């Protein structure tokens, strides 16, 4: 279990694919190496697209938390 403190939290609920992923990319652009960014999304497509982007960009997906009607993605900016 990684210990973390969220630096930026983005509530992208109600936004449709590719909205949540683009919001995450924007937040990662604006943050520092080592920061933890959280995105909340209720778009089903995010479950595929967000982890795929994180893998491609070589950041780290710390956790995907399934809440009642949305998912919470926690991402660490690694470079």
């Amino acid at each position, binding site marked *: 279990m990684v210990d973390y403190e969220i630096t930026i939290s983005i509530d992208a609920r109600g*936004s*449709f*694919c*590719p*909205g949540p*992923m*683009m919001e995450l*990319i924007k937040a*990662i*652009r604006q943050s520092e190496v080592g920061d933890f960014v959280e995105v909340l999304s209720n778009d089903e497509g995010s479950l*595929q*697209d967000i982890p*795929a*982007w994180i893998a*491609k*960009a*070589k950041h780290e997906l710390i956790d995907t938390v399934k809440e009642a009607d949305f998912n919470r993605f926690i991402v660490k900016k690694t*470079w």
Partner: protein
Amino acid sequence: MPIAVILGGGFAGLTIANKLAIKLKKRKEVEIVLIEPADLHLYEPGLLYYPFNDKPMSKLEKPISKILRKNVKHIKQKATKIDHENKKITLEDGKVIDYNCLVIATGVDLKEESLGLTDKDNVHHFYSAEATLKIREALKNFKGGNIVISPSTVPYKCPPAPVEFAFLLDEYLRRKKIRDKTNIKFLYPLPRPFNIRVVAAKILKLFEKKGIEFEPFFNYDKINTENKKILSFEGDKASYDLLVIIPPHEGQDVIKESGLGDKEGFVITDRETLQVEGQKSIYAVGDCTNIPASKAGTVAHFSADVIVKNMISKLDEKEPTARYDGKTLCFLVTSSSKSFLLDFSFKKEPRKIGLHSWRIYGIMKKLFQYLYFGGLITGRI
């Protein structure tokens, strides 16, 4: 007398102004005012074909005075501020215009200058008349090498336009007999070349057939003009001899100044009522909104009907009940003579029938300009 003001006279604003003018022709109780600095209207969908032909740009233009109905007053100025509390709009010369109902249709601001390029860099686009003439020259002088195509931000106008450009470019280079000396690379911010999966799969198949290389998750970071490379935020790079990059899109300054926009200056708009957030007397239409629909003329067209119906209901002191369902109709060009017809909405993916690449659709897309000037923008359809 109530005043309906339309701010911005591009495709969306002119359509709304004309539709309102038709509906209110016999009822003289409303004054319709359009605020738009330009004299000429440009048929933007035509820009897609113009890098590959020699036609004068004037063929895509028409004076606004010939499009706009007589019962609309045209104020040829830019607005600098919307005071939504007092229902007033400030113009560039300092004059103030009152409104009872406002429709914002200011489109997008292309932030070309933010790329920091000069004419010598061989970096081009086809999203304005001026840029299209330049890319036409660059293509004429092109003898072979790497052509890279990439949008710099999402969202941008007409989501399929860069894909369509790639298909037309492939055909153009074959005609010039230099396709075998040219690599076409398509770099895209998203995992697929189109947001809707079935359409994306069709595009990828055609890319493969035509030898167009596709790279997903390429979010533009910067251009190194000295060694001609485009770099992504994901850490990738691609070399180009000619780079086609869609400039960053933002909302207009007047939206940012008036506190009606999101972080990028797109008007915060309800996707069904098309009302601006927290504003009962303001609607937004076309590319200026933040609704999750394509920045396309077809979206503006179907939204315009909803807004006009609701404005008339309000005038008649009835409940405004019309809603936009995300309806979008789009011809996606796959060659100079063929295109897919896509018909979708917020809840409905394109039907299979619309995914056939038919010649008739290719011809229809080319002839579309007649329908655009003859029926759509005049508010008749």
